[in-house]
């Protein structure tokens, strides 16, 4: 039931119906403060690029991030052609150039295209700077869309966002403990759908699904503890996973992914935005809370905090008794590729095998990657036996 519903729902087919005539705004980074967009009564829709990156070869060098090129292809010739507004983050070189290309080539009339600057560290000064950027963003949205983002609207948006984060966390724990019959691939699809659906609709769906989970007779609730209990536990780490079939292949070869350290994985819903209770919440203090949440969340490779990343990856390895790590990076992604030699060396010292796979938005998972996954899992299995 879950699978069919989600797989068949393309945001474009339901765009008008879902948006309820609200302006749709595109986003592409987990550091996007969606709560501000929700408070402004916009419909935040993440660009989920699927298109062949070579379609953007007229606008961007082919030796360039396939994610950015695919996103541009989607805007120029793909499903997102009609997307008018965009809120981008100064995530990396690729997104900075994507922002340039959007302004230069994709310029619908009266569109709001904005790049929010994000610090690379989480120092006190960085927090002050990011907060001032959020304040400016609120002003710009208010001016452009002729609306007022009040404290109450922000609090409501945060509350809704927290609910969804909580529900997804609950679903994740059910998935990871094998209490429901949910594959990693479908779990990621559910996460991705949350990135494009209106928050209320998505929340209702998650609530319903989780409620069903308490009724063992339902199909989606089959307890399959015995089936996966012995599978090697894996952690997958990287940026964006372009083809979710990869997860299926890992599972088919007998691996169980227990944490998705990905932009479209756990990093997108981890944590709660804590609004201090009993305090008078003015706009400034709410934005301060948002600032702290985003700068202190699980850092992605883009942030310059390798120790914090290593600390939490290491913690996960211990907590979940992870037996192997799969690094999945998109081609030409500098931020993650530079981390790789150091992280893999540290894992080696801990005797945790790791595998590096590279994605480039190709139509099929390459035979090479399949073979490498199979060999990696065989090595893990062999290691267990010996």
């Amino acid at each position, binding site marked *: 039931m879950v699978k069919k519903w989600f797989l068949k729902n393309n945001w474009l087919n339901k765009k008008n119906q879902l948006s309820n005539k609200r302006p749709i705004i595109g986003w592409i980074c987990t550091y996007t403060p969606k709560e501000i967009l929700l408070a402004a009564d916009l419909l935040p829709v993440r660009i989920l690029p699927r298109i062949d990156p070579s379609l953007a070869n007229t606008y961007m060098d082919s030796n*360039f991030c396939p994610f950015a090129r695919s996103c541009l292809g989607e805007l120029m010739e793909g499903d997102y052609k009609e997307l008018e507004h965009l809120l981008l983050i100064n995530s990396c070189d690729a997104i900075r*150039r994507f922002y340039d*290309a959007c302004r230069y080539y994709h310029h619908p009339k009266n569109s709001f295209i904005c790049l929010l600057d994000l610090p690379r560290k989480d120092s006190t000064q960085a927090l002050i700077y990011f907060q001032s950027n959020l304040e400016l963003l609120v002003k710009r949205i208010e001016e452009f869309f002729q609306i007022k983002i009040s404290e109450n609207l922000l609090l409501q948006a945060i509350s809704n966002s927290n609910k969804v984060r909580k529900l997804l966390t609950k679903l994740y724990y059910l998935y990871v403990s094998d209490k429901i019959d949910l594959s990693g691939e479908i779990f990621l699809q559910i996460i991705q759908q949350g990135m494009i659906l209106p928050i209320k609709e998505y929340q209702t769906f998650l609530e319903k699904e989780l409620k069903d989970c308490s009724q063992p007779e339902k199909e989606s609730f089959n307890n399959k503890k015995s089936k996966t209990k012995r599978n090697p536990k894996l952690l997958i780490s990287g940026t964006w996973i372009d083809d979710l079939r990869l997860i299926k292949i890992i599972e088919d070869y007998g691996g169980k992914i227990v944490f998705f350290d990905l932009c479209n994985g756990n990093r997108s819903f981890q944590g709660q935005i804590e609004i201090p209770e009993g305090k008078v919440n003015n706009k400034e203090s709410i934005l301060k809370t948002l600032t702290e949440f985003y700068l202190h969340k699980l850092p992605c490779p883009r942030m*310059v905090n390798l120790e914090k990343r290593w600390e939490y990856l290491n913690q996960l390895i211990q907590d979940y008794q992870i037996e192997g790590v799969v690094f999945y990076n998109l*081609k030409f992604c500098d931020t993650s590729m530079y981390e790789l030699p150091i992280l893999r060396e540290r894992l080696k010292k801990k005797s945790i095998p790791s595998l590096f796979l590279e994605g480039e938005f190709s139509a099929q998972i390459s035979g090479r990657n399949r073979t490498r996954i199979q060999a990696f899992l065989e090595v893990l299995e062999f290691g267990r036996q010996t």
Partner: protein
Amino acid sequence: MVDKLKDTFITNWIRKITKNTKTYKLGKLFSRLYFRKSTKSFKIWLNFLFQQLIEAAQKRRLVVWANIYTPSEFLYSLNLIPIYPELISGVIASLGWGDYFIEEAESKLYSTDLCSFYRVAAGLILKDWFPSPDLVISSSQLCDGSTKFFNNISKYYNCKHYLIDAPYYSDQKAETYLARQIKDMNKQIYLDNGKDPDQNKIKETFHYSNLTRDYIIKINQLRERVPSPLSGWEAMAYILYMFFSSLGSKKGLEFYRTLYQEVEEKSRKVEKNRNNEEKRLLWLHQIRPYYPNEILKNIQDHKGVISFEEVSYLYWSPLDDRAPWKSLSRKIISNFGAGPIERRINQIDDLINKYKIDGVIHFSQRGCRQSCGGAFIIKDYLKKRKIPMLILDGDGADSRNYSKGQTRTRVEAFLEMLS
């Protein structure tokens, strides 16, 4: 077994000699003899390079490894010995040793898609064939690779990494964020060093930097003349090394003063013989290939000349020692390569007009996202201005990515089209 022992012995021996002051003193002496007929400015550069290496090996003061976007004035004002791994990689590549270190880096999981200058540096570090740093400073205004790689360096040498987190925009709050970081960094480095901040050193450094800046402006003005008195190919070699690493030092001032005299003299001489220059080119990107290649020959064979290169564009205002941190912040965020692409386009526009440019070559360094990512937009913009542009794929330090025949065909076709 014997071979392995031999390899280990050689590796350890090289490790020892590359960390020894005497090696660089000998190198300095030898280079003086070997390059005795070179220009005075070139000899000043050689002297500067070897002095840096000697001091880095001596370690009488703290040695800092910084990226080329970190203002050298900040490092000199802190009385540090600066080493720029990207520039060292360029020197290594020009000596023909780049591929050796690249292979070493690749064997330790540095992807072939990464910037070759950082791969050379990574190989050098992994081999441990260079005097080590005491601290690392990098500024992030231009590329992610640099920020991440310098963080890695600090892990390899177990030393502190100070990141100057450069904002995207250049407004007041961005400037304040940047200035506060530099101020705190200055304080912290002095504290770690057990010394008090030295205001006089800032004054002295900024004074040298501003005087040097004046000479750079004068040189750039001379280069507006037809025919070009200084080839961009040369400017992207040892002159570029000084451009990134010497500003704020007395040696830097001496170098640019000498270079100015040489360029002026040359411009007077070439004035009389102006028939050879037909196509004036603008070279985009900070670098060019440093290993032996024929690109310059291909250009010259078709009577082309690189009249200017965007990296030598002087984009910052004079430094003000009364507000040093704000002043340095402004220098960082006014970099034409940072922020939106329009800033780079405006600068290119300016250069095309000033240097009477006929065609533009964008050197698309494999592994450089920040520059190559905007090349198509620049090309489309120039098309509207009816200025032809060639996107020349290549690599600055990895000679394995240089295809002689293909490059020649592309360059020749472009220059023929220009005529």
